[in-house]
C-alpha cells in the first residue's frame, strides 16, 4: 500500500496519539536490576504485550505499518516517516501501551514501568527530537506512580502522565488523587488511553463474545470515567488539572454533558462540591483526541456534533498510528472553519503541553 498524501494540510500539526511499541521484552533489560533480571529469566521472559488489539486484526496496524516479525510501531524510523514526514506534522506524542501498568504485582509493575520510561527516553526521545512522550505510570499503586512522575518531571521531553482508561475503581475515587496532585503540581496533563482492565468486565452488562464489541465499548468506559472524575470533585480539588482522553471517541460527549447537567439539577445535593453545571467544568478541564473518528453518513452531521461541544478547545489532532483508523479520507476528513482547525491541529496542544525546543 502506498503512503497516504495529505497535500500539506497537516504541516506543523501536533499528532497527540502515536504508539511506539516495545520490540521484545528484552529491550527493557538494560534498565532492570539484577533482582528483576533474575525474575524475568525464571519467569520465562514473559512478553507484556497487551491484548487490547489482536495483533493480526485489521484494526491493530495499518497495512504500511506492519513489519515482519516485529510489532507494528516498533521501528523508530518507519514510525517517524509515517507520522511526521508523510503528514508534515512537526511533533508526535508517544503513548506506549506496553502493559507494564496493569500487572497485579505492584513491585514488578513499578520496576517494569520505570524501565519502560528509561527505554522510551533513550531509544525514542534521545534519537528523534520531534518526539515527545507520556510518562507511563502504575495506575493501581498511586505511590509508585507519584515516584515515577517525580523522576521524569524535570525532563521536558515528557509532556503528560499516561494511565489506562480501565481501572479497578472509577478514577474519580480518592485512591487515585495522589497521581492528580503530582501531575497538577508539575503542570502535566493526565492522559487516559483506551486499554487497561484488571478484572472488571469491559461492559456494565458483563463480558461480550467478540473483540469488536469490547473495542466499541471503550467509549462507554470513558463516559463512566468522566462521570466519576467530575462527580467525585477531582476538577474541584485540582483546578489546574487537564485530562486528555485518547482513543476515546468524542461524539458521545454532547449527549453525556446534557444528561449530566440535567441530573445535576435534580441530584446535586448528593455532590455539593459541584457548584456549577457539569458541562462547564468538563469544558474547562477535558480534551479528547480525534481518532478514531466516528463515521456518520454525511460529514455535515459530524460538523454539527462538533458544534454541540460548544467549544473549539476540546479536540486534539491524532492519527492513532499504527492502528488502522482511516484510509484516503485521512485523519480529519471534514473541513472545519479555519480558526477551529488551527485549534485542533496545533493550538489546543500547545495550550496544554510543554514542548521542548
Amino acid at each position: 500500500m502506498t503512503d497516504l498524501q495529505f497535500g500539506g494540510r497537516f504541516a506543523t500539526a501536533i499528532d497527540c496519539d502515536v504508539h511506539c511499541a516495545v520490540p521484545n521484552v528484552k529491550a527493557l533489560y538494560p534498565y532492570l536490576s539484577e533482582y528483576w533480571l533474575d525474575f524475568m529469566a525464571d519467569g520465562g521472559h514473559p512478553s507484556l504485550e497487551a491484548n487490547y488489539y489482536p495483533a493480526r486484526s485489521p484494526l491493530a496496524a495499518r497495512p504500511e505499518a506492519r513489519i515482519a516479525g516485529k510489532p507494528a510501531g516498533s521501528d523508530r524510523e518507519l514510525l517517524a516517516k509515517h507520522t511526521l514526514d508523510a503528514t508534515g506534522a512537526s511533533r508526535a506524542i508517544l503513548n506506549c501501551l506496553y502493559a507494564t501498568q496493569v500487572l497485579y504485582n505492584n513491585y514488578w509493575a513499578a520496576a517494569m514501568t520505570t524501565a519502560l520510561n528509561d527505554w522510551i527516553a533513550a531509544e525514542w526521545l534521545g534519537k528523534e527530537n520531534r518526539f515527545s512522550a507520556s510518562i507511563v505510570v502504575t495506575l493501581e499503586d498511586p505511590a509508585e506512580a507519584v515516584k515515577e512522575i517525580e523522576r521524569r518531571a524535570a525532563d521536558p521531553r515528557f509532556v503528560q502522565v499516561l494511565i489506562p482508561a480501565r481501572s479497578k475503581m472509577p478514577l474519580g475515587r480518592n485512591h487515585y488523587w495522589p497521581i492528580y496532585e503530582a501531575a497538577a503540581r508539575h503542570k502535566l496533563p493526565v492522559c487516559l488511553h483506551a486499554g487497561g482492565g484488571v478484572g472488571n468486565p469491559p461492559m456494565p452488562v458483563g463480558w461480550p463474545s467478540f473483540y469488536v464489541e469490547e473495542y466499541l465499548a471503550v467509549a462507554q468506559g470513558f463516559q463512566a470515567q468522566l462521570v466519576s472524575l467530575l462527580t467525585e470533585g477531582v476538577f474541584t480539588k485540582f483546578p489546574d488539572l487537564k485530562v486528555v482522553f485518547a482513543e476515546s471517541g468524542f461524539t458521545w460527549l454532547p449527549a453525556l454533558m446534557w444528561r449530566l447537567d440535567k441530573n445535576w439539577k435534580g441530584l446535586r445535593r448528593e455532590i455539593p462540591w459541584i457548584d456549577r453545571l457539569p458541562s462547564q467544568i468538563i469544558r474547562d478541564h477535558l480534551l479528547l483526541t480525534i481518532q478514531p473518528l466516528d463515521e456518520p453518513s454525511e460529514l455535515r452531521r459530524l460538523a454539527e456534533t462538533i458544534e454541540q461541544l460548544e467549544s473549539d478547545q476540546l479536540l486534539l489532532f491524532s492519527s492513532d498510528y499504527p492502528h488502522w483508523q482511516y484510509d484516503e479520507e485521512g485523519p480529519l476528513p471534514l473541513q472545519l472553519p479555519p480558526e477551529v482547525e488551527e485549534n485542533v491541529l496545533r493550538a489546543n496542544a500547545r495550550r496544554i503541553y510543554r514542548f521542548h525546543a
Partner: protein
Amino acid sequence: MLEDPARQQTQRRRTQQPFIDCDIHNYMASDEVMLRYLDPRWHHHHKTYGHRSHSVLAFHGAPYPRLAGVGKRKDAAPPSGLTAGADFDFFRSHHLDAHPIEYGILNCLSRAGDQLYDEYDAALARAVNDWQLEVWLKPEDRLRGSIVIPYENGDLSAEEIDRVGSEPRNVQILLKPRTREPLGRRRYWPIYEAAVRNKLPVAVHFGGYSLNPISSSGWPSFYIEDHTNMAQVFQSHLISWICEGVFERFPELRIVIVEGGFAWLPSLMWRMDKHIKRLADEVPHVTRRPSDLVREHIRFTSQPMEEPPNAKFLEQIIEHFESDEILMFATDYPHWDYDNPELALARLPPQMKRKIFIENARKFYGLPARLD
C-alpha cells in the same frame, strides 16, 4: 385574576398535544397484595427468605439512595398514604385524567427479574402479571401492560410470555438492563423467540441489579453516577444485539429502549458503522449496516430526554437518527425525573412533535387512534 383549576385543566386538555405515555409506573401497595397473587407454594419462601439478588442491603433495594424524594414526585403521593403509583384511583385522576392521554403503558418495576433463584423469580413474575391485569388493565381501558418475566432464565421467561402473551391488554415484554450478560447472548434468545411468536416487542427499562459493576472500571460512589451511567448500559446492549446477529436471527424482533436517553444514539450508530466495517471478518453473521438495523428494529422512549442548552441541538440529534419514527414520548410518572408533557419537546415543529407524542407509538404497538 385567578382561574378555576378545574377549568384550567379542561382548557389545557383542549390545547395540549394528545399523547401515548410509553412509560408509567404502577406499584403493589404492600407485600400482602403480593401474597394474594403468589402461588401458595411460594408463600413460606417469600415471607421467610424473600428477595435475594446481587444487592447486599436487605431493606433497601438500591445501593444508591435516590436523593430525590425516594425517587418519586412528592405531589404524586396519594392522600391514602400509599406509596406513589400504588393508589389506582389517585393515579387515574392525577395523571390519566389530567392530560390528553390516549393510552398509558404500565411498566411495573417489581423485584422479578433480578432474583438469584429462577423458580421464585418466575413465581414473582406470574403474581405481578396476574395482579396487573386484574387491578389495573381490566378496570381502565386507557392502560396497557408490559409482561414481567424472570429474564435471567430464558425457558421460564418464554413460559410466562406464552402464558399471558395472548391477553390483548399486554402490549410488550419487560426486562431491566442490569443483566448478568449482554442481551445479545444466547441465554436470552428464548425470550426473543417467544416475543416473535407472540408478536410482542421487548421493552428494556432502566434499572435492575447486576453482579457487573455499572462501569468497566468498577462501582461508582453516587446515585447521580449510577443514573447517568445507565445510558452506557443500554449502549452496551445495543452493541451486543447488533454484533451477535440477533436481528438477522429474529427478523421480526422489535425492541424499545425505555428511560435510557436517546441523544447518544447517533454517536453509537456512527461508531458501530465504522468499526464493524473494519472488523467485519470477526462477525460475518452481521450482514447489514448496524445503523440500518437499529432504525428498523429499535425504538426509544423520550424521557429522561437530554436537555441541550440550545433547542437547535435537539433538532439536530433527531435529524441525525435519519428516521422520524425512532422516538416515542413518555413521562415516567410518578418518578422524580418526570418529563412534563406540556413543556417537553415544546419547540419542535408540530408535525415532528405529533409523530413523537402519538403517531409513532400507535404504529409500533398497533394501537387504534382514539384522540385527535
